[in-house]
């Protein structure tokens, strides 16, 4: 049984990965993922030109862009694009029934599709973290980089960012996969989730824990120093008063994602084909 499911999941991934990676309509996801690298590279070039290099400032810049833009905007919308399309995109193309007519359990289809989405999103978004890292830090002298990376906290920071990006794909991916299964028009649930995740800063402690961003922020290696004027909206978005330990955060995020995927798998049994009457 397991070997059949493994083969089927592999077959699904071969079908869906090609679609996710090479689809023309997915081009914007690559652009979105790489978009932070552009200002970082410019900043780098500018610094080199002017001959000033404040390493500490660059570390802060990376942390800020990562938490404020990359996690909340880039990966969020990238996952909307990738994971919601796993089911909705096939509804639009009128090709979902080929899966539903194969001797594959709906749960297996769902897991196969989820894994395809994960491979694609993790590759794209973790890859982009590396590109951004290089763009921002490349202009510093090699000796400084070396000591930051290998004797300082650099390597562990980088790993934390990669883990956070991957966890973001797992968390948001599961949520948008489920939304794609449950809703005819997934843009409305996407907007609701966006609001929920942005309101994270003002949610009470318990509710916070059922948002994805709360756990992601806890994985990030450095917290952004809060600017003056503690009640600014920006503050609410970035700053967190009570982060969880990274390990706990990863574990909780996996549990959250697992719960959402199982729920979606149960609901997937009820999917009916109605592309609109022909």
């Amino acid at each position: 049984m397991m070997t059949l499911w493994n083969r089927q999941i592999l077959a699904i991934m071969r079908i869906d990965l090609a679609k996710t990676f090479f689809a023309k309509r997915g081009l914007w996801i690559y652009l979105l993922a790489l978009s932070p690298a552009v200002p970082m590279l410019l900043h780098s070039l500018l610094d080199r030109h002017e001959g000033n290099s404040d390493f500490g400032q660059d570390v802060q810049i990376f942390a800020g862009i990562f938490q404020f833009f990359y996690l909340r905007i880039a990966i969020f919308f990238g996952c909307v694009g990738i994971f919601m399309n796993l089911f909705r995109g096939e509804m639009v193309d009128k090709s979902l029934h080929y899966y539903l007519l194969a001797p594959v359990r709906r749960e297996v289809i769902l897991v196969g599709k989820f894994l395809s989405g994960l491979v694609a999103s993790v590759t794209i978004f973790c890859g982009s973290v590396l590109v951004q890292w290089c763009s921002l830090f490349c202009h510093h002298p090699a000796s400084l980089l070396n000591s930051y990376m290998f004797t300082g906290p650099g390597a562990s920071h980088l790993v934390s960012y990669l883990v956070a990006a991957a966890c973001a794909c797992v968390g948001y991916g599961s949520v948008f996969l489920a939304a794609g299964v449950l809703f005819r028009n997934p843009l409305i649930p996407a907007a609701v989730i966006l609001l929920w995740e942005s309101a994270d800063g003002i949610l009470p402690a318990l509710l916070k824990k059922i948002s994805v961003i709360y756990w992601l922020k806890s994985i990030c290696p450095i917290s952004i120093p809060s600017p003056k004027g503690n009640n600014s909206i920006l503050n609410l978005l970035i700053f967190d008063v009570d982060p969880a330990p990274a390990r706990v955060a990863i574990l909780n995020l996996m549990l959250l994602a697992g719960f959402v995927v199982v729920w979606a798998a149960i609901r997937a049994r009820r999917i009916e084909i109605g592309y609109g009457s022909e």
Partner: protein
Amino acid sequence: MDAIILDNVSKFYGEVLGVNKVTLSIPPGITSLVGPNGSGKTTLMNLIAGLLQPTRGGISVCGLSPSDPEHFFRTLGYATQYDGFPRGLTGWEFVRNYLRLFGFSPKDTERMAWESIDRVGLREASQRKIAGFSKGMRQRIKLAQAIAHRPKVLVLDEPLNGLDPLARAETIALFRELGNEGSHVLISSHILHEVDLISDQVIMMSQGYVVAEGQIRGVRDEISEQPMQVLIRCDKPDVLASQLFHHSQVVEAKVHADRGGLLVRTHHAESFYKLLNRIALDGVRIESVAPADDDAQSIYEYLIGSEESTK
């Protein structure tokens, strides 16, 4: 165990009726499902294949249910009416990719994919992208995809739509072959004469209801209280007509414009034929007598066409 069984099945799309109170037991062989647009053919097929769940009633295919997909979909193949394909694939990739889900070895998968593509005559074309296929080619590659795993039950929604006469003849021959191999082949169409010759039985639908079912002749008998038409070629049609009118079985007799024949409507075919034999002895030379509507087309027009025209 060998049949497709629907037990009082209804499907509503919200308020809209898809099919209503359908009870059928479809034996192996070629069965055609006929009805005008919107009569519920696709709905019924989607229900049989588990793409829709019935609002009420139960369905089983050879004793299996779609809730057990790992067995059910090895038995059933379904080429839908939807003209949709996954993006960016060639015909061959399309058939092979979905065949992989069955868990055959890679070698068997390749072989079976080629075999089914050969059966629909698309070997060369299958190397090109489906996006560039004609309607007829898309119909045939869908058929190849549906038969690739050699299902015992084959459900085909308007499979002849968009095929040119040659492809149509080839495809019909393929259905015959599949039917002779002992499979169930369920074919839908709204043009009856294209399927009535190859069908072992017909199911006629109108506005969500099954209105007639059985062998074509049986279907005719089912409505035997309705007049039947007989076409008679003879040398003196007006004489014959006047003689026939004396008999109560004859409802109507129309002389052909070429004055070489007569179209008679009668209530009771058997006694009418006996009557005709007697009259023929009285000097009218009858060349041929044939039921004008013993093919499904006329039954269909009769059952569904007339309803349509009174709407």
